[in-house]
């Protein structure tokens, strides 16, 4: 199995699916000749032409809205938002339209749409090129939301998302694009939407999260294992809506000590729901209060390097929190 970069896994998924299914196409700002500002759609316009790799005007509500129309008309659009920070102008189309089309039409219409958007900081992008907007869309019934941490999952989840009969928000982490590379099988495979994945087995503490911070958790876990004999059980949610209730409860029960991590700010984040779920079902199996390690409740990270570092999670912050929990 070849090792592949996370960004390449995303590109490959789109390319292969466009080859397989003529209904699939991409649209967004600069997705054509430029191949997207991160290079995610590179080569697609050359291979599939301007009508299947559409450079759109600079208008996110139209990108979402036109894609929704095309999805209702029977196509399988992949709409790219250049940065997740810039998908807010499309909120109304996503929440009022995409999420409600099947329900409001009593199953007469559907909206098989994927919206891809890069999340996360660490590229000196400052307030508006670094945000994690998950919590804005999380909790909107009718939407599915995935956020892969590995190249394998990125490809498998994107194929599932494209084939899913309902709208899926695909939050790719821009810091993972070239930093994360792992084994990706050639050809077609899917990772099911709604199923979490145990990244590491452990007995002492459970870390639950999604996207980039899991890599910090994995590094911290290796060190804690070597240095402290602490074995962390690490669960990658992969899908944040619908949450994998069973997987979460099983992982939490495994150690009775839960640390939830995400880069989105703490209050009202996905972690709150995970904590609430556990406290609703597993209260008597817990050996420690449920902890969350997330971004601080400030509007977003500053661009200056010390400020950005202060804001972001990293291995050391994870390690300290994990050790502290293990010692509880």
């Amino acid at each position, binding site marked *: 199995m070849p090792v592949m970069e996370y960004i390449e896994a995303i590109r490959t998924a789109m390319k292969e699916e466009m080859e397989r299914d003529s209904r699939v196409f991409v649209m967004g700002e600069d997705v054509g000749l430029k191949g997207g500002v991160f290079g995610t759609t590179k080569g697609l316009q050359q291979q599939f032409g301007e009508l299947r790799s559409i450079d759109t005007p600079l208008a996110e509500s139209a990108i979402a*809205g036109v894609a*929704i129309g*095309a999805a209702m*008309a029977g196509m399988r659009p992949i709409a790219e938002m250049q940065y997740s920070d810039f998908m807010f*102008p499309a909120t109304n189309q996503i929440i*009022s339209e995409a999420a409600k089309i099947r*329900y409001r039409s009593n199953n007469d219409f559907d909206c098989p749409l994927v919206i891809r958007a890069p999340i996360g900081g660490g590229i000196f992008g400052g307030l508006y090129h670094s945000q994690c907007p998950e919590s804005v869309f999380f909790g909107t019934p009718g939407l*599915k939301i995935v956020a892969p941490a590995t190249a394998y999952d990125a490809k498998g989840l994107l194929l599932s998302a494209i084939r*899913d009969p309902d709208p899926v928000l695909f939050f790719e982490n821009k810091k993972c694009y070239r930093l994360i590379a792992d084994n990706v099988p050639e050809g077609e495979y899917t990772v099911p939407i709604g199923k979490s994945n145990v990244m590491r087995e452990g007995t002492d503490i459970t870390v639950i999260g999604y996207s980039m911070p899991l890599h910090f958790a994995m590094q911290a876990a290796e060190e804690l294992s070597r240095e402290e004999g602490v074995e962390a059980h690490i669960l990658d949610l992969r899908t944040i809506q619908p949450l994998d209730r069973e997987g979460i409860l099983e992982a939490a029960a495994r150690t009775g000590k839960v640390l939830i991590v995400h880069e989105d700010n703490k209050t009202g984040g996905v972690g709150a729901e995970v904590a609430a779920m556990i406290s609703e079902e597993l209260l008597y199996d817990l050996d420690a209060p449920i902890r969350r390690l997330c971004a601080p409740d400030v509007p977003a990270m500053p661009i200056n390097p010390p400020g950005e570092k202060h804001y972001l999670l990293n291995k050391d912050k994870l390690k300290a929190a994990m050790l502290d929990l293990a010692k509880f």
Partner: protein
Amino acid sequence: MTQTNSVTNDTRHAALGLTDERVVQMYEKMMLARRFDERGQLLQRAGKVNFHISGITQEPSQVAMAFAMDKEKDWFLPYYRDYAFVLSVGMTVKELMLSLFAKAEDPNSAGRQMPGHFGCKRLRIVTGSSPVTTQVPHAVGFALTAKMRGESSVSIVSFGEGSSNQGDFHEGCNFAGVMKLPVIFVCQNNGYAISIPFSKQSAGKISDRALGYGFPGIRVDGNDPFEVYRVFREAHERALAGEGPTLIEIMTYRVTPHSTSDNDMAYRTKEEVDAHRAKDSLPAFRSYLESVGLWSEEKEQELQANIRKELDEATEYGERAPYQAVEDAFRYVYAEDAEAGEVR
């Protein structure tokens, strides 16, 4: 266009390529929509339904625009006053009544959405919502799909003049203009957005906005359904010829309050309303048909009797029909056979 009827090309409708049969149908649809609408108001006043929203006096132009479309191939994205439009493309009064009574059999939403929220795939009517103007980019998406697939299909989307001030109008029009897509944008300018008169809504002409998107914008008198028909035929032809979108602003007037929840006398006068009601083009359309020998008092009475019967039956049916079972109230948030569909 071939003329199969006795009437010659001298008549206005024949000159436009409308057969006698079609022009009579147009009148029948206008009248059907009018009577349905009036019934809706009555039912609300009688406390049988909670809410009705009216399209009275907008029907003639709505029918004209529908008759210019291709029912088999085009896609329709109406707005909440478009009863005459949806009736013209195939929805029945019974179906509208099921929606008004919010019953399970309502094809629009199984009684989930408010009346006036149309949607029926069988009739190529695209499901709509309440936040205004979101349907504009959707129509562009349908047109984009037609272009991608090389299909001869046009999408047509309506909205009010107030709604044309939403960002989605701008973004949708510009997108369609750049890609020269087969879509017709229809602004039904009835002078008010709830209580806000046009003068406080926009300082320009809505039709002039097309210029900035690189396609034609036309303002047409909604009380002249033949002229409405003509501009829509042209727009339809342009769309099919690959020449791109058209924006059509239909000048009309909202003679009713915004909805049954509104008291319009708080913000306009009875005189103003009456002056506009006098311009209602439905009686004029009848006179026209009579003048070309296609209509008579007898036919009128027969039509009214038929409509009354149809409405009575539909009302009774709608009233008696069951609501969606509560077990089903929460279904279809997601596809129920999602798993099955994974790899096609």
